[in-house]
């Protein structure tokens, strides 16, 4: 190692959000001309660290040094002036403007009032030639492919004289050939002394392109080193190496019945209007009544998309859904409900609850037909009885049935959503991140509820980004990566490292 200060040194970085410590004394160093992989599970703290580096959030503690000098990155503009440019997974381009306009947006050459278009376009074409983007600089960004749009983002970064480009999951939307082209470009930039921070869930890419790696786990440094001195297994061990929380409930094996839901060759393709949508490619699996099937995968694996397609919340292009062995047509949530399928969506507040309405209204919304008379009047007695029944069964702590659901804690809100579906008596219940954002005590209660549902004969599909949770609640686990099912494993045969391997490698590689 030479003695010159590194390009970037972040040390002792801590960041807390209300109730959560997202980063705890994290250090992160990137040398000039280095390609550095930043790795970790969902929620490990990668995004928070990168947001602090981009000036989008400020740390509670810690220092950032660039070329050995301490700096304060109060906002994204300051970070860019220091040569740090972040390319987010969702691009920040204006689709109806040209390539040149996008590259120099906010920094157009020219006088105070007028833009010097000739200079703008010649400067842009110099950059696009360097990047191998073979398009007129007047082309509108909306007419470009995802890979080309990414090049425009990189051109913008270079136009700011950046020394460090942060790429958040740059390959997730690219084909293999496009990925190789991007990697050649990253190597060229490297030879020019420009560093890259590379965030990816595809671990094999780390070994293809990166020099060094840093792994975060639960907001702390889990390990760092040279890529050449480790292996995929070594990195996976660092990513999942936490101990199983003793507080998690464990399911005693229940009686498993016949197949309640089968999904066959579910396909969902990207459309021009949503080029970043996650594709589903021939997703197939079965779940039996009385069984809890875990769907595991990293962000972007297509778990939520699969759930939404089954439930009729999003359309799909081809494939079959069978309930109790019979093919069914599901194009709307109403049809899914008619076939006995329920969905507890991943975002409780945006997708499940009516925050400004009373608990009773939130709970009874799925069963209004059952608690109202022929004239469509809702029976207050039946509704209050329903609330009372589930308040006791699920131990929902509330002031009263007329309390606004928005005033409940996260755990009690989630119980109201579960109660809504239990009241309907579903054959199949899909729960997407059932314990996200709720505290540990309520988490165990929700797990026990899922066990009770399975014991009562409901086929449960549980989606979770937390591997310990998946391992604790599932009888069987299906793993997905980028819209493809990559494996299936019985809970008793699985551990976190096996699952992480199945989730990060594609089918051929895992075999």
């Amino acid at each position, binding site marked *: 190692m030479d003695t010159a200060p590194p390009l970037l040194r972040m040390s002792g970085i801590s960041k807390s959000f209300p109730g959560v410590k997202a980063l705890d004394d994290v250090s992160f160093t990137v040398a000039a001309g280095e390609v550095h992989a930043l790795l970790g599970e969902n929620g490990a703290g990668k995004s928070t660290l990168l947001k602090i580096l981009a000036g989008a959030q400020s740390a509670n503690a810690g220092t950032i040094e660039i070329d050995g000098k301490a700096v304060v990155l109060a906002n994204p503009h300051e970070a860019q002036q220091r040569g740090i440019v972040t390319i987010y997974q969702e691009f920040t381009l204006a689709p109806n403007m040209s390539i040149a306009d996008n590259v120099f947006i906010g920094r157009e050459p020219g006088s105070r009032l007028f833009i010097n278009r000739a200079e703008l376009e010649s400067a842009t074409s110099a950059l696009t030639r360097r990047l191998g983007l073979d398009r007129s600089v007047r082309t509108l960004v909306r007419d470009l492919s995802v890979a080309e749009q990414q090049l425009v983002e990189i051109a913008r970064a270079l136009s700011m004289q950046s020394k460090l480009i942060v790429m958040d999951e740059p390959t997730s939307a690219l084909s293999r050939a496009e990925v190789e082209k991007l990697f050649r470009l990253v190597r060229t930039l490297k030879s020019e002394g420009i560093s890259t921070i590379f965030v990816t869930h595809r671990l094999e890419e780390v070994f293809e392109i990166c020099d060094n790696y840093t792994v975060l786990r639960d907001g702390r440094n889990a390990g760092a080193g040279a890529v050449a001195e480790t292996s995929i297994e070594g990195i996976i061990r660092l990513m999942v190496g936490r101990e199983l929380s003793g507080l998690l409930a464990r399911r005693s094996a229940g009686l498993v019945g016949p197949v309640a839901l089968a999904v066959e060759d579910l396909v969902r393709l990207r459309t021009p209007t949503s080029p970043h949508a996650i594709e589903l490619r021939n997703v197939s699996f079965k779940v039996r009544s009385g069984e809890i099937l875990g769907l595991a995968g990293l962000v972007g694996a297509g778990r939520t998309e699969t759930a939404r397609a089954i439930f009729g919340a999003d359309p799909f292009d081809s494939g079959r859904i069978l309930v109790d062995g019979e093919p069914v047509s599901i194009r709307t949530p109403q049809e899914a409900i008619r076939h006995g399928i329920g969905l507890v969506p991943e975002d409780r507040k*945006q*997708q499940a609850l009516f925050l400004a309405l009373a608990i009773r209204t939130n709970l009874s919304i799925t069963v209004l037909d059952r608690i109202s008379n022929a004239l469509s009047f*809702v029976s207050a007695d039946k509704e209050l009885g329903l609330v009372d029944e589930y308040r006791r069964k699920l131990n929902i702590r509330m002031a*009263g049935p007329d309390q606004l659901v928005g005033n409940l804690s996260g755990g009690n809100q989630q119980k109201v959503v579960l109660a809504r579906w239990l009241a309907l008596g579903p054959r199949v219940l899909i729960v997407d991140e059932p314990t996200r954002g709720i505290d540990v005590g309520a988490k165990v209660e929700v797990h026990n509820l899922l066990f009770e549902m399975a014991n009562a004969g409901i086929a449960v599909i549980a989606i979770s980004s937390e591997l310990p949770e998946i391992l604790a609640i599932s009888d069987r686990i299906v793993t997905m990566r980028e819209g493809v099912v990559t494996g299936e494993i019985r809970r008793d045969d699985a551990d976190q490292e096996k699952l992480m391997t199945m989730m990060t490698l594609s089918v051929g590689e895992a075999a």
Partner: protein
Amino acid sequence: MTELRATPEKSAGFDPFGFAARFAPLIFLIVLMAVFALLEPRFFTSVNLFNVARQVSITGLLAIGMTFVILTAGIDLSIGSLLAFAGLVAAAIAKGGLSDRFTVGDDAIGYGWQLAALGAIAIGLIGGYVQGFAITRFKVPPFVVTLGGMSVFRGAALLFAAGGPISGFDKDFAWWGQGKVFEVPVPVIIFVIAAVLAHIVLSYTRYGRRVYAVGGNPEAARLSGLNVNWIICSVYVIMGFFAGLSAFVLAARLNSAEAVAGTGYELTVIASVVIGGTSLFGGVGTIFGTVIGSLLIGVLINGLVILNVSSYIQQIIIGVIIVLAVAFDTFAKSRRRRA
């Protein structure tokens, strides 16, 4: 955060802001009436108060329909125009002028108030349905669809009447606007009955629950298995029904229908609903609030007229009150979100 979780009973305690928010329109109404009564003795006479009530009942009927629309976070700007068109159709039916619209005279054979009322309501229902269909099927924002409807129905009204009014109905027709039952004007009775029915529908029926749910969170409503498009379309049909009904009552009260009737009503009606506490963001609001809001606007206009304040200034005052009411609503929403 942990503290918040530890006290889920928080909302059970007395919340002075929540209390004020809930009863602010009623308190404001009482204060306003007291002020006018002090300033001008003529205000607080039964003749004048019934007069206010009768004036309010036309826009009040529209405000009941508008409450359904705004509860779904929608808006309907076309009601004034739709009312004019429906009123002319009712008038033409009553006067037997459909086949012979330019010579609606004594020798024409009328079809009676029953068919006239049905005709007005049918026009309202159809107009509302067409707009609801465009909003839900073609995904055009309600603001744009009903802005278009505002122009279309006004044009239809002008075309239908060839620009002129149709006046002079028989006594049975006029009774619906001018008659009284035990000193209470008939339009007021219609308004009260409609308000009670609408309140029952919104508070006690499946349909009402679904309207609140769709307005409160359309995505959650969809994922709970509600037919969101159907609900949204239906509120514009209900709005159309009330536009037709009030067109009939207005024609009866004025003994005339004309193509420029109802101009600017959308402003008064939306103001009534919003001042009554219904949130433009959807999901929050009551018919009771709308009734209070309608009375408030009615009393305000009546009081200003009695005090000889220019009608130009009245417009300015109403405009300012709408903006203040919405600002208050936005503030209340941000408080709810923090809670």
